[in-house]
């Protein structure tokens, strides 16, 4: 087993990995940029190494700096987390060349699946159903011809991509040139690779993905699905398992296809095979494979009863994964809500600032994976994910109620969040009915924030201000302090 692991990431996922290491008795090395000197993940780790300036390309995407940090701290393995270099085959290969262990699949598997175009070709060969589309196009006329053949709307996305970056839906041929330019630029900045592929866009589809897991001894299983159809800007905000749409038979078919897809690239460690699911026909198509730990892995952990991060580390160290497909079951229902610093009322634009208040909910069946605390600053350099709130309950209705209660207890002030927005989604009959497709937020959900503040909030704010004024004037008059003043220490309330 490893003695020391370097975590090539930041925020909540770095902390999640540090916790797993601690339970396995492994020492941890955090890395940080200028902007993260005082970040929570740095404080959780046994050691921390500075790797560069705040922009990701100069720090968390800087493979050389990360390798130097791993070698100088004498780590024997590197966990990449998700995002950043987690799906970068060259980085995985460089880690191996430095005689360190990359906690994830082989560089070859990452390379095969990381390229969306190549992976689609490999999946077709392996007999896994794929979405109609075209790969390997260069010039604008080629894209225009392919789009015409497939039929609008089409989806243009980064070959090297993931996470909705470098992805554009194009409804009209006139918009194609500009959208391709934009997708190229986004792809280049996010992945350092501007190749794009194009495919048919299915507007009413659901996003259903399967967690797969393999060891280095040939065992490869799936750990059931996650329904991730509540999305905005092509990024997931609410995920759950089991999917309200799948029958046991569909689950079996899709699970088998997921395992087949992973086998086709000789996969081991944790991975996710994403499918587009058409509820009208119950047809499913391979979308892509994420060759890393997924943001929403906790819902699988809670229902399957496994610690995926600990197993990632154990199989990377050569241990066998002890459970066969038949031994794996799911229990209850789990939901994850991603609490983002963003404003749903203005196009989900990220919101930056200092967290004036940050109080997480607690209770049975409630888990919070977060990387922030009160007083921290949310900057524009990184993803605006504040925390993942995950609940586990007996069944779906109970899990929804638990999530609603937990979100009510989540207090974030100083940045605008999507908490109210997610409450509205959870309360919607379409969500209860499992009718939310990936385009639902955009097309069917007309959410607006309350037009005026509630009576109670105005009363509370006014009382808070009033009692401070009273307290201050009574000090000036050298009188006894206002007996009703709650503000024993006026400086505690930042005026």
């Amino acid at each position, binding site marked *: 087993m490893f003695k020391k692991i370097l975590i090539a990431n930041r925020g909540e996922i770095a902390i999640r990995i540090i916790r797993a290491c601690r339970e396995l008795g492994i020492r941890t090395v955090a890395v940080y940029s200028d902007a993260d000197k005082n970040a929570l993940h740095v404080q959780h780790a046994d050691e921390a190494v500075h790797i560069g300036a705040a922009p990701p390309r100069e720090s968390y995407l800087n493979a050389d700096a990360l390798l130097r940090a791993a070698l100088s701290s004498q780590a024997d393995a590197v966990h990449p987390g998700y995002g950043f270099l987690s799906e970068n085959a060259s980085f995985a290969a460089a880690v191996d060349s430095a005689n360190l262990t990359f906690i994830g699949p082989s560089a070859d598997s990452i390379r095969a699946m990381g390229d969306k175009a190549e992976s689609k070709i490999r999946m077709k060969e392996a007999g896994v159903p794929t979405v109609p589309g075209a790969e390997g196009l260069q010039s604008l006329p080629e894209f225009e011809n392919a789009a015409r053949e497939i039929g609008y709307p089409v989806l243009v996305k980064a070959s090297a991509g993931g996470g909705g970056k470098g992805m554009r839906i194009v409804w009209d041929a006139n918009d194609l040139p500009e959208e391709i330019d934009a997708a190229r*630029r986004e792809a280049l900045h996010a992945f350092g690779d501007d190749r794009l592929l194009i495919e048919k866009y299915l507007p009413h589809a659901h996003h259903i993905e399967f967690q797969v897991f393999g060891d280095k001894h040939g065992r490869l299983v799936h750990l059931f699905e996650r329904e991730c159809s509540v999305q905005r*800007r092509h990024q997931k905000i609410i995920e759950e398992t089991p999917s309200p749409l799948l029958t046991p038979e569909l689950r079996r078919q899709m699970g088998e296809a997921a395992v087949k897809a992973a086998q086709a690239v000789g996969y081991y460690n944790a991975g996710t095979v994403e499918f587009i699911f058409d509820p009208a026909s119950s047809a499913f198509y391979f979308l892509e494979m994420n060759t890393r730990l997924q943001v929403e892995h906790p819902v699988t952990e809670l229902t399957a009863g496994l610690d995926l991060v600990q197993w990632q580390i154990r199989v990377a160290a050569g241990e066998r994964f002890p459970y066969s497909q038949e031994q794996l079951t799911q229990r209850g229902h789990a939901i994850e809500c991603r609490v983002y610093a963003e404003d749903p009322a203005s196009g989900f634009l990220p919101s930056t600032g200092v967290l004036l208040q940050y109080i997480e909910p607690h209770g049975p069946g409630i888990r919070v994976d977060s990387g922030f605390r009160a007083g921290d600053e949310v900057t524009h350099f990184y993803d605006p994910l504040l925390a993942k709130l995950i609940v586990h309950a007996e069944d779906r209705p109970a899990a929804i109620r638990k999530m609603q209660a937990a979100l009510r207890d989540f*207090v974030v002030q100083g940045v605008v969040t999507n908490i109210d927005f997610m409450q509205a989604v959870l309360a919607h009959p379409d969500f209860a009915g499992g009718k939310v497709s990936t385009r639902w937020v955009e097309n069917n959900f007309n959410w607006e924030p309350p037009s005026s503040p509630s*009576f*109670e*909030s105005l*009363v509370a704010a006014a009382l808070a201000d009033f009692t401070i004024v009273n307290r201050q004037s009574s000090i000036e008059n050298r009188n006894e302090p206002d007996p009703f003043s709650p503000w024993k*220490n006026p400086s505690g309330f930042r005026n």
Partner: protein
Amino acid sequence: MKIIFNNTTIDIVPTDASYRVAIGDKTVNAEILRADTEHGKLDLLLDGERVTAYISSDNARRWVTVDGQTFVLTKSSASRKSGSGHHHAAGELTAPMPGQVRVVNVSEGDSVTKGQTLLVLEAMKMEIRIQTPMDGVVKKLLVVHGQTVEREQKLIEIVDKLES
């Protein structure tokens, strides 16, 4: 005493052991059960109903969370100017959020048409297009490629063709 938040006047009158709070024609008897200044938490009894509020302050702004809902209020008073204070001219485009200028499509003096993408900002790995809301001419270009900009920072000024 009168306090104004978001153009709503709240009138507070201390009584024996509590407060009468009036907003418009709605009045409530408010008792402060507990106040935790360190955490900005108030436990109130409003006409006998328990209400817990979390409050924080950021200059004239107040963040208030009651029953899971958060509101941002702006305080107006005699000593402070009311409202947001800044007013942008029609053709003055500002950054909707902090970020970096990734693309500059125009130069000063260029003619532009409504809806044209003038600049592209990148923030939190997303692209935000800055488009002109009107036909006109680029009078001032205030940023360069690669520059980091703050929220509300002026980026570019567009004027009517006649004005230029």
